[in-house]
């Protein structure tokens, strides 16, 4: 059985991370921003499990991934709550409008 080489996983993860980060930097919709963060986190997750596939003697990578997933879930919940609260105040979900402290 020939396995898929590590590099493939890394390339996919890098591509995912790039999409996520570019999306985070360029998009203005807060919901999209949250999704971009999820993308980046999942790119890291993919890297971690891919390495774990090669170095099989410990499960650190997989365990770490579970932690990341848990934190990502919590973060998504908090993030959505913030977006909801923000929408109530400004009737908008654009990150540009989040400038209450500045003005």
């Amino acid at each position: 059985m020939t396995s898929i080489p590590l590099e493939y996983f890394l390339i996919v993860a890098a591509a995912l991370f790039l999409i996520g980060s570019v999306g985070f930097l360029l998009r203005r919709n807060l919901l999209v921003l949250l999704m971009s963060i999820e993308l980046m986190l999942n790119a890291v997750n993919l890297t971690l499990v891919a390495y774990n596939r090669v170095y099989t003697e410990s499960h650190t990578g997989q365990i770490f991934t579970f932690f990341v997933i848990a934190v990502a879930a919590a973060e998504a919940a908090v993030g959505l709550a913030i977006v909801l609260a923000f929408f109530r105040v400004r009737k908008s979900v654009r990150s540009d409008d989040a400038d209450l402290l500045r003005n």
Partner: protein
Amino acid sequence: MEALKSQFPATSFSLLAIVLLLPALGAFVNGVFGKRLGKEGVRLMALSAIGGSFLASLLTFLMLPRGEDAEQGGRLVWTAWRWFSISGRMQQSIPIDVSFAVDGLNATMMLVVTGVGFLIHLYSSEYMKKDDGYHRFFAYLNLFCFSMLVLIMADNLALLFVGWEGVGMCSYLLIGFWFGETKNASAGRKAFIVNRIGDFGLLVAMSMLIYYLGTLRFSGIEAGATSLMAPVKIWPIGNLSPETLPSWAAAVLLPKQPVMVYASTLVGLAVFLGCAGKSAQIPLYIWLPDAMAGPTPVSALIHAATMVTAGVYLVARLGAVFILSPAAMATVAITGAATALFAASIGLFQHDLKKVLAYSTVSQLGFMFIGVGVGAFASGFFHVFTHAFFKACLFLGAGSVIHAMHVRIHDTDQSQDMRKMGGLAKYLPVTRWTFLISCLSIAGAPLLAGFWSKDEILWKAFSNEIVGPKGMSSLPPWAWPTWLGPAIYWVGILSATMTAFYMFRAYFLTFHGEFRGWTIVRGWKGPHAGHHHDEPHAEDDKALEGPVPHESPLPMTIPLIVLAAFALFAGFLKADPIHIEPLGHLLEPVFKTAETSIHERASAKGMEWIMMLPGFLAFVVGAGGAAFVYLKSDGAQEKAFIKSFPRLYKLIFDKWRIDELYDATIVGMVDALADIFEMADTWIVDGILAKLSAAIVGAAGTVLRAFQTGKVQAYSASMVIGLAGVGWFIVRPHAIASVDDSHLKQTGQVVVSAAPGFGYSYKWEGPGVIAAKDFSETRELKMELQPGDKKEVVLQVKNAFNGVDTQTITLARPGKRGANAAPNNAPPAGDLLPEGGKVVIPADKIPELIRGHQ
């Protein structure tokens, strides 16, 4: 008594702690909880604190060493703790302890402070009854007693200084007790600032004592005082000499002989500056008359009976230092005489009853300084003792009068004005009799307390001669002129005459004649409302309007009676001419060493009784003159005097305009200095410093604000850029090496180590390098260099992405080539080397190890 003596041995006499701590406790409780305690509670606390302190002082007094013990300088000593140590000029450690020692001198003083203090506390508990600051007043008063006890019980100058400053602070607080009026607050400030000038002198004296004697303990100062006979050059100072000065300046400034004085003179004068401040002597007396702004019991306790006598106490305490310098003694005595005369002259024309008493106090303090200045320490102190009673009695009597006047006049200044009083003897019988007794006492009526003490001082001034220490140093001491004693004596007699006159003037104006206060009733509405109170109707007391002045209640009259009793009889504690002197015997051991260089002038022998006559005549003339002018002819002569010499009268009435003189000179200079500082403050501190720094911070803010967009994505973009930079750095190879050359000088060994990194491998090249040809994991390279050697090593680093970085490291060992060929200390043959084969290279000839970058 025996049981007590075993409980409190003389070397660890902890009873003193009770004497001290009770007033401190009173001050704490009244100060912190006073408002909640209520007036009755405050009164109970304050009176029991000072009363308990008095009982403990009495016990201390009874347990004083007597007879043989006292002759050998036996004292009651209690050391609380070691305060700090300083090092002297011989590098020796000088311990400064919180330690108290009691002998006959300060045991007597303790009794006066706590005893008179208790009576005045009792008096104040009634006098201050209607005041809102009742608890504050008693907290201050107790704190004052504590500080005063620290001052007199301290066994070293440093601790005395703590008490000295403590009483100064309490005095300030109590003078400005009614700080609502600017006049009172500024009087308090004046007292505080004038005292600071004196305290400077005391600090200087302390430093000199530490320098010359290496101790601040009174016993140590007394024992080692002769070390102060060192001559000190006071002019020219520093490096002033004909070489450093232009010739005209040298001719003016430099004397032929350098001016030399004894260290004892300097110490004596510095101490006396402190005493002049605290005890209101010329030129620092100006604060005391203003201090009368405080409540009258405060004037009685602090500014008459106790605090102001601290200076006299200190001069007496340091008598062993003063007798080493006839010049300093003469300064003390002359200043005292001048102050006595000067203040008495001001007292002649004052209208304010308390002002008369204030100048009288200054004048009497002058008498005390005459006493200690002519070497009659015991007599000077005895006057402190008797003065405490009759002057406290006079002030409390004045307080009682003011208290009575207050039913008619609700104005501080008006109620103290003697022109509004008169005829009060009818309404205030107890006050009148006690006041009369104290007047007689201070005026020197025969057999009363003031007579004995004043007469003693004047006699000693007449007869004493200070014989400076002889043959101790090359510098001839200043000789005490024979005319000085008689001169001071006659000035004293003149002052005593004035004292008798102005005291009886005050007495007759206050208690005799017609009551002149009927016309003023402020804020009182009588049965005939609308009646004009301005109309003079002093013709008879049937026409009186409003409340009648009445005698003060019992808590105020009891202190008066007790003090008057002492003013009558206290003189017999030290009546030298008739040889009844228990107090004199008690003080003898204290001044034993100090009185060795005091001699009776040969020409004054056997004149003691004759010289009492002028003193007696002073009383008769002064009191009789006052009776004639103010009792018989209702002040007609005073008015005549005012008419014929209006300007002289105005000058004396304005206190010789000394305050104005100080305002114009010293205060003016200080004000000018303050103006300069204020300009510096507005222009430099506010203008440049504050505005410039504000501008810099503002500009920095403007620049930084551009980055603070408030947009999350702008922040995250900069984060991404930064992370990319870090990533790029990690991806690139870096050939960085550190060189450990700590063994270079000894063995020539050098360790070069390359910095680690992700996936790095290393390759070393260079002359004499035995290393792998290819990249390997060897991070360290060890090399040995001979003296004078210089080698270049090339380091190549390859990282995981096969990037390569190269660096050349130059290693060099200082020294002559071949001088130390063998690193193991084996000298090469034929080479002339020092023993051991080591080459000693001067440190400055070793060049730095050279490191180069490619």
